[in-house]
């Protein structure tokens, strides 16, 4: 620091008057901070009034930012409710020359693992099942090699929660359950179009279909689907059944129904939950927070909040400046004393600057905390997912320090210019 160099120079020029002093022992940074902070808490009432403006300013800025992020997810969901609440996870694929293969693997217990994550409302597995060459799906046990080959509807293996996750409803009958899945029961649920093709309209008598000659009892027909419309053309079997009968070796895809706005977070956590040793091996498709239209609407709201925040911050800065100035006037005697005891003008200025920076940081900390709390509180009441970037809270504290620094500049300058003689006479 500059003043230390100057004081060392002083030692050289003043002969025997001064002892040689180790630099570290003379008004070091820790002395500065101790001197500057030891009186801050001595008047709690005044401290509260001083930091109030900064608390409000930083609080409203942090809250604005948080509301903007939270609402961005929220608004986009109003435009695209379903898309913004669905995440899908598949193994990453790679090509090796002419071959291509999956790099990772989704575990069979993926739904249980995913449901433990905050923001996940349901998870299911769905996999494509490939049938043997020439295998047919029919509603009667025909084995007619001379029959013209007909297109075979796709077969999907799924876990029992599938319909909840994709927003589907049964047209008739019921979905299979975890019991069917665990036992590998030969039951099937049909998509509405495949049911039509197979001439199955009612399931109360449990009609059978034959996949490659094996009978499966049809227990339900899927009707409306909000996503995964391709399931209308598919035959859906329990995963356990497909593993047992049709040689399914690994799940193809995990689909997750999430809370609005949780997309980016789930996208980060899901691969870790499913393949902690190699999260890169899984590919996640998650909705991004915000949409162009949503952002445009939100933009206007933000400007208003930001102006409010900036104005409160200005008021907060003026508050700190005012109180620091008052404190300089009140402590004229102390300043004179310190100067008499050997403080330089710079050390006095530094002390008051650090004091107001600390007040600013305190205001920033409390403001940022209140801002985050406000976002979380409103989100909880509205049943939104609160989204607050930790960077915003840190930035709040930094801005608080900056406000303190700027507001302390003038009072500190005034303090450093006080003549010790005048001060010692004034401050009895």
């Amino acid at each position, binding site marked *: 620091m500059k003043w230390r160099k100057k004081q060392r120079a002083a030692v050289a020029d003043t002969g025997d008057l001064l002892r040689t002093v180790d630099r570290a022992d003379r008004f070091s940074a820790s002395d500065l901070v*101790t001197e500057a902070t030891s*009186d801050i808490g001595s008047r709690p009432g005044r401290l509260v009034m001083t930091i109030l403006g900064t608390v409000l300013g930083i609080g409203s800025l942090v809250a604005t930012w948080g509301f903007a992020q939270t609402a961005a997810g929220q608004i986009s969901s109003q435009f695209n409710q379903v898309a913004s609440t669905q995440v899908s996870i598949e193994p990453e694929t790679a090509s090796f020359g002419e071959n291509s293969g999956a790099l990772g693997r989704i575990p069979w217990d993926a739904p249980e693992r995913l449901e433990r994550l905050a923001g996940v409302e349901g998870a299911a597995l769905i996999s494509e099942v490939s049938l043997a060459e020439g295998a047919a799906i029919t509603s009667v046990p025909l084995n007619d090699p001379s029959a013209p080959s007909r297109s075979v509807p796709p077969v999907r293996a799924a876990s029992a929660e599938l319909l909840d996750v994709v927003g589907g409803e049964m047209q008739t009958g019921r979905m299979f359950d975890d019991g069917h899945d665990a036992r590998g029961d030969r039951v099937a649920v049909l998509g509405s179009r495949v049911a039509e093709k197979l001439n199955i309209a009612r399931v109360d008598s449990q009609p059978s279909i034959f996949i490659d000659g094996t009978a499966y009892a049809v227990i339900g027909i899927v009707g409306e689907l909000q996503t995964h419309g391709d399931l209308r053309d598919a035959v859906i079997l329990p995963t356990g059944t497909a593993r047992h009968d049709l040689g399914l070796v690994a799940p193809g895809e995990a689909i997750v129904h999430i809370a609005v706005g949780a997309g980016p977070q789930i996208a980060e956590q899901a691969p870790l939950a499913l393949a902690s040793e190699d999260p890169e091996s899984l590919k996640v498709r998650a909705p991004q927070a915000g949409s162009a239209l949503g952002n445009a609407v939100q933009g206007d709201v933000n400007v208003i909040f930001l102006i409010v925040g900036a104005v409160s911050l200005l008021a907060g800065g003026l508050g700190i400046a005012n109180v620091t100035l008052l404190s300089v006037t009140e402590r004229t005697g102390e300043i004179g004393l310190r100067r008499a005891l050997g403080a330089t003008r710079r050390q006095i200025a530094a002390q008051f600057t650090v004091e107001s920076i600390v007040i600013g940081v305190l205001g920033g900390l409390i403001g940022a905390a209140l801002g985050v709390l406000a976002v979380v509180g409103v989100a909880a009441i509205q049943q939104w997912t609160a989204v607050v970037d930790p960077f915003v809270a840190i930035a709040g504290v930094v801005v608080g320090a900056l406000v303190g620094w700027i507001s302390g500049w003038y009072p500190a300058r005034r303090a450093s210019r006080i003549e010790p003689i005048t001060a010692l006479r004034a401050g009895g």
Partner: protein
Amino acid sequence: MTALVELRDVTRSFPGPPEVQALKGANLSIDAGEYVSIVGPSGSGKSTMLNILGLLDRPTVGEYRLGGTPTSDLTEDQRAAVRAQAIGFVFQSFHLMSRRTVFDNVMMPMTYSGVPRAERARRAEDALDRVGLGHRRTFFPGTLSGGEKQRVAIARAVVSDPQLLLADEPTGSLDQRTSGEVMELFEDLNADGLTLVIITHDQAVAERAARSVRISDGRLSEVP
């Protein structure tokens, strides 16, 4: 041997109008280890004298040598460093910080004077023991009597081991009995080798010093 304090034709005038000459061609020489009182009525230039001796003010004309070094060449930072290490102050109104304990008040000057951190607490305790207030270290100044406050201020003035102690009306706020105690403390410090300059309007206080200098209308004269 060079004198510790040497004033040569020092004049200090304050621009007016009307211009006031608080010191007029003052000459004074004080050796290390002396106990000198500067006595005079109010308005005679006592405070100006103290400020110049304490490097809080500069002469308009003339030279002030401290420890043989001409002080007019020193920068503000150098003067601050000399104040921190070589000069101790005691004031009439004590100037203790009311929101800090007695101990912290005594610790404070050492942050500016470069006493090694490891030594500070021990030296503050020694200084308080020396003024007989070791048992009051955790008290706040507001709870002390006037005499005790002044003794804390004296502990604070000597804690950095100065060469010169300047006291401005040190008994001005004390009753007669406590004044006596404080004066005895000064005499003890002087007996240990500390150079002492007491500025006072009180003849009784002035007479206790080994040497007395009268100041009147900005001029100095030795009291025989």
